[in-house]
């Protein structure tokens, strides 16, 4: 489903629908669908997860009343305080506790209130969660653990309510990192993450919680992990992104088309392990690639994609790999508009790459 239809409110543009090629294999289309926003889609996924597995638990700071972004509304009332409960303010404790719960065969769905606060839990994720199966020779695992956190810019978040920390976690073998771009994707991906037998960190684009509205099927469905999706076909340049940034990239694609440049846009969806094949196939077609993310450019996940693509497609590349990302500064307060990888910056880079 084209992103353009989802985000009318954010950009005030009436976007003509164009059905992209989707590699999703599940029957997303069947059944009733209702137009809902991102936090409602997440809410539905959590509800289904709790319903279908009696050993699923949802916990985190303030989740009981519905959470600061309403993702957990109604769950405590429906499933009781023994399965949906608040934790004290202690991220390291929350994740450590979640690992233990998962190690006993439960589905522990932990919420970190903002991705900016995930760092106290970093040790637990990197040293405990990701290595548990490996170091116990497969005797134990915490595959039932899913950590959800809102990430990304929101217009006024400043240093501690806007960060995109995905790159730190992409450096850790043993966990998966998944980022949805829209409500329909979020529900299917979250259910896949919860049911995946590996620990997963699921970042939700907070700017889209209310703004993104899409037709989402009401039934239980899952979308495959580690499968990227080509959401816009093109022949001149491949654009790779994830989460909220895709909508900005799509705007740039539309404008580039007016100048005769046809961009292929890929939603990575799962960052690790990422779908190298799909991206490679696209780059073999176009010969050019541009990666965009909100996180600072140096050491961002775009660097990994760039290095891998150059390794695989060196002789096919017509231009250097372009990265249009956040600047190498802490996420600023008043300077946010300058920091962000905006549509114009992407457009500029598309043109520079195509005309190289």
């Amino acid at each position, binding site marked *: 489903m084209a992103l353009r239809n989802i985000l009318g409110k954010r950009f005030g543009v009436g976007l003509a629908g164009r059905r992209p090629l989707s590699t999703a294999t599940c029957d997303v289309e069947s059944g009733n669908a209702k137009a809902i926003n991102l936090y409602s889609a997440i809410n539905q996924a959590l509800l289904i997860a709790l319903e279908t597995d009696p050993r699923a638990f949802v916990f985190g700071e303030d989740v009981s009343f519905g959470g600061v972004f309403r993702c957990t509304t109604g769950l405590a009332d429906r499933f009781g305080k023994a399965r949906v409960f608040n934790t*004290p303010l202690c991220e390291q404790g929350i994740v450590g506790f979640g690992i233990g719960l998962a190690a006993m065969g439960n589905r522990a769905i932990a919420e970190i209130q903002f991705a900016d606060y995930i760092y*106290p839990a970093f040790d637990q994720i990197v040293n405990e969660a990701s290595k548990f199966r490996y170091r116990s020779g497969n005797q134990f695992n915490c595959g039932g653990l899913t950590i959800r956190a809102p990430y990304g810019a929101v217009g006024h978040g400043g240093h501690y309510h806007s960060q995109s920390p995905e790159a730190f976690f992409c450096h850790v073998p043993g966990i998966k990192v998944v980022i949805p771009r829209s409500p329909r994707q979020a529900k299917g991906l979250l259910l896949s993450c919860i049911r995946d037998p590996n620990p997963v960190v699921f970042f939700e684009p907070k700017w889209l919680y209310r703004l993104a509205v899409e037709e989402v099927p009401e039934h239980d469905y899952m979308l495959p992990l580690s499968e990227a999706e080509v959401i816009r076909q093109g022949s001149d340049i491949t654009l790779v992104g994830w989460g909220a940034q895709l909508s900005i990239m799509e705007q740039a694609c539309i404008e580039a088309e007016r100048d005769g440049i046809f961009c292929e846009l890929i939603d990575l969806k799962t960052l690790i392990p990422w779908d190298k094949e799909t991206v490679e196939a696209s780059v073999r077609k176009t010969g050019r690639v541009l990666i965009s993310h909100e996180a600072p450019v140096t050491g961002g996940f775009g660097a990994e994609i760039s290095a891998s693509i150059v390794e695989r497609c060196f002789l096919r590349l017509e231009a250097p790999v372009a990265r249009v990302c956040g600047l190498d*500064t802490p996420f600023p307060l008043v*300077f946010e508009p300058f920091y962000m990888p905006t549509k114009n910056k*992407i457009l500029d880079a598309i043109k*520079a790459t195509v005309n190289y």
Partner: protein
Amino acid sequence: MALSQLASSSPSRSVNLLKPLLSAISLHRPISTDTTPITVETSVPFTAHQCEAPSRTVQTNAQELLNFFRDMAVMRRMEIAADSLYKAKLIRGFCHLYDGQEAVAVGMEAALTKKDCIITSYRDHCTFVGRDGTLLEVFAELMGRQAGCSKGKGGSMHFYKKDSNFYGGHGIVGAQVPLGCGLAFAQKYCKDEAVTFALYGDGAANQGQLFEALNISALWNLPAILVCENNHYGMGTAEWRAAKSPAYYKRGDYAPGLKVDGMDALAVKQACAFAKEHALKNGPIILEMDTYRYHGHSMSDPGSTYRTRDEITGVRQERDPIERIRKLILLHDLATEKELKDIEKEVRKEVDDAIAQAKENPVPEPSKLFSDVYAKGLGVESFGADRKEVRATLA
């Protein structure tokens, strides 16, 4: 002038004879600089853990009480003005207001010097003012302007003042406490007889790093005072739902603690003076300030979904810190009601002037986006998105 001399020289404090005369003449008395000691009892006695509580009897004087009144009036007015500015979208981002908790800021300052360090969380506007921060610096920083204390780059949660040893202003809950203990270590090393007050809230009290910092401080006998500003709600979560033991002053276990009525500026002063003396000799001590915030957690929180309006008005009526000092001043006849109201009017004007000035102030230059990432002169370059046009040397 003569009348005020008469008033202050009267030992019994009873100037009833002169009262009708005074009000009839309605002379404007200057703010009393009288330092004749007045003895007051704190509202409630202190509760101690692993130490002997200080006396309930506090020495103060007219000058101090009137300063308390004025300073708290400034803080209160400032926070309310910030509320309006936020609603008018002149302040954006996050804004955590301190009104109701002013007694902690002023009481603490009365017991400390500017050589002592204070470090706190994001609810830092009034603590900053207590450390001699100006109203212009406050409003300019809130509105993201150059004249702000952090040059407009920090915002509400990141106020700092180096020359008064105010170490800010921290967004991540509880992260400032280990920092505070580090400051205390440096102070002990330098032997400058100064201490560090590390403030945190009841929500942060459940962070593991607090206990790590406390253990280190106690092991090495650091002059660190951990102050829990217990306003009973961690965002929307009541303390009894987050903490197995909401007796925060006891949670140091091996470290002594004191529970203080945080709405009584004099009790706060007494406790802080006691704590400073203790910490310099015997290492860390925990102070739990029993206080209350009238506003919600931040401007996005109405503050009424997890507590009743009756509770809020109840505290306002029974325990408001400014009203307590006002009653004390009137009781001891240190100023008339009208004079106090005049002070409040003056304060209001001061705040309005500062806001007007801050509004005129420009936003930081765009090039400042790249400044102060690293120490100057490192020459690290940052590229803009397209790697060609935007190039800046990170300073």
